[in-house]
């Protein structure tokens, strides 16, 4: 192993100290159970109100367009939407444009719907149409003929008239839906749903987006999209609203995002301090070098 110069040593040592700081910033609040009450923003309240206003039996597409990499941000959102829609007795059509999204839908249907809403029946109250390849092409086909785009559900039951899925009766295409809810971490995602479904079909759409993608999507609000939950903060705000409106949700599995905001807050402060420290060190070095010269 070749020996490192002083500058390289400083770089290597400094980098690991920063990693350790970040780790501490995330772990310590978890161990000490630091969490805060969230103050939902106006946009989150609008999204909540839109789902609150749904009548029983409303037809809602819930698209899970994310993979395990984005699960910490997106899963709490998806779970909160699922709980709220089930509470409002909406008919939920789960589907995904991501191959890895099908596993996420399986988890929410088993661990949220099947366990918390045993009266919610598969095939009547909700259906899992699973994954279909083609990205925005899937949305384009579904806008004309949903059953052509998804000929079977994940259990290989036909979505057509001869299948046992009563939820699909009267559904020709996405234009029959009352609301689209898309929980998306990237491409294909909310932008594609807005471009190919919400705008041409004038279908109301609500989005949950990863924090990284959210700023790019805000121009669609409110004309093309009712609102967007941005990242873990958006998920936490939505969970807060659910807790306030429906106190029986006050249990650990319904407070996942809220619990994560504690470490999130401390980590944000650490990053800010790192930026300030980096700039101060840089300025000090420049002054020293300027003085020496």
């Amino acid at each position, binding site marked *: 192993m070749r020996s490192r110069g002083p500058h390289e040593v400083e770089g290597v040592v400094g980098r690991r100290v920063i990693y350790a700081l970040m780790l501490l910033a995330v772990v310590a609040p978890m161990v000490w159970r630091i969490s805060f009450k969230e103050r939902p923003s106006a946009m989150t309240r609008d999204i909540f109100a839109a789902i609150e206003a749904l009548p029983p039996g409303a037809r809602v597409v819930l698209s899970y367009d994310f993979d395990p990499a984005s699960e910490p941000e997106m899963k709490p959102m998806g779970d909160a939407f699922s709980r709220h829609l089930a509470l409002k007795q909406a008919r939920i059509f789960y589907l995904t444009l991501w191959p890895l999204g099908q596993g996420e839908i*399986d988890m929410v249907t088993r661990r949220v719907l099947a366990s918390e809403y045993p009266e919610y029946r598969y095939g009547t109250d909700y259906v899992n149409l*699973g994954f279909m390849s083609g990205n925005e*092409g899937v949305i384009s086909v579904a806008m004309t003929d949903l059953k052509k785009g998804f000929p079977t559900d994940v259990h290989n039951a036909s979505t057509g008239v001869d299948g046992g899925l009563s939820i699909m009766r009267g559904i020709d295409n996405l234009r029959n839906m009352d609301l689209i809810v898309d929980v998306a971490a990237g491409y294909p995602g909310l932008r594609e749903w807005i471009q190919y479904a919400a705008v041409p079909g004038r279908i109301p759409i609500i989005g949950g987006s990863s924090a990284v993608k959210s700023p790019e999507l805000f121009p669609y609000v409110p004309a093309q999209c009712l609102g967007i939950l941005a990242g873990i903060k958006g998920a936490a705000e939505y969970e807060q609203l659910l807790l306030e409106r429906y106190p029986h949700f006050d249990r650990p599995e319904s407070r996942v995002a809220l619990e994560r905001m504690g470490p999130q807050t401390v980590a944000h402060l650490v990053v800010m301090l790192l930026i300030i420290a980096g700039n101060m060190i*840089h300025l000090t070095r420049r002054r020293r070098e300027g003085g020496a010269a």
Partner: protein
Amino acid sequence: MQRAVPFAITFVTAFVLLWAVVVPPIDQIREEFVLFFDILAAFAFLLGGASLLGRHGRKIRRRARGWGFSAVCLGAFLLTLIVGLLKVGGEGGLAGSVTAEGSVLGWIYEYVFGPCDASLISLLAFYVASASFRAFRVRNAEATVMLLTAFIVLLGRTFVGGVATDWLPPELAPLKIPNLVQWIMSVPVTAGNRAIMIGIALGIISTSLKVMLGIDRTYLGEDA
């Protein structure tokens, strides 16, 4: 022939999709074309897997450097492929869901793939912190504006932002950090992102037209 056929295919497909918007009778053809596209996308996934098989297989055959890891990769690939194609362990067998409860593929997804995927991406948190310390330098006024905005957003997206400016009187409510963040996102950030969006849209429209008319044939491996 080598260039004419692909160009003709591109032109006809794009033309049909374009005109289906204003000529409803050809919408049926548009729908079929898009369905074909969806199926072709699935074949692209097969292509990816086959490509992986070929690349790592060659590495193992040649006993190239790191061939042991290629063997690991292929082993994981083949194991997952077999349990997935045969729907091993899932309720309903071949007739059931590919990710049915109890299936081996479902187990691999939840306990192997998921953790690997999530952990790999979570490394970025460390690198973002490191990059913030090393590279985020306030060298001029524009960088200062960028930094201040970042700070306001970072604070405003946490509890601290709400509490830090709670003491402000109602007349100065717009300066409370959560309200400031809301305003920043809905006004200047929207303006900036909208401009970028319009620019990208113009670029995509022009590129689509160039591809459709055969002016841009880089996808065929030729110069534009």
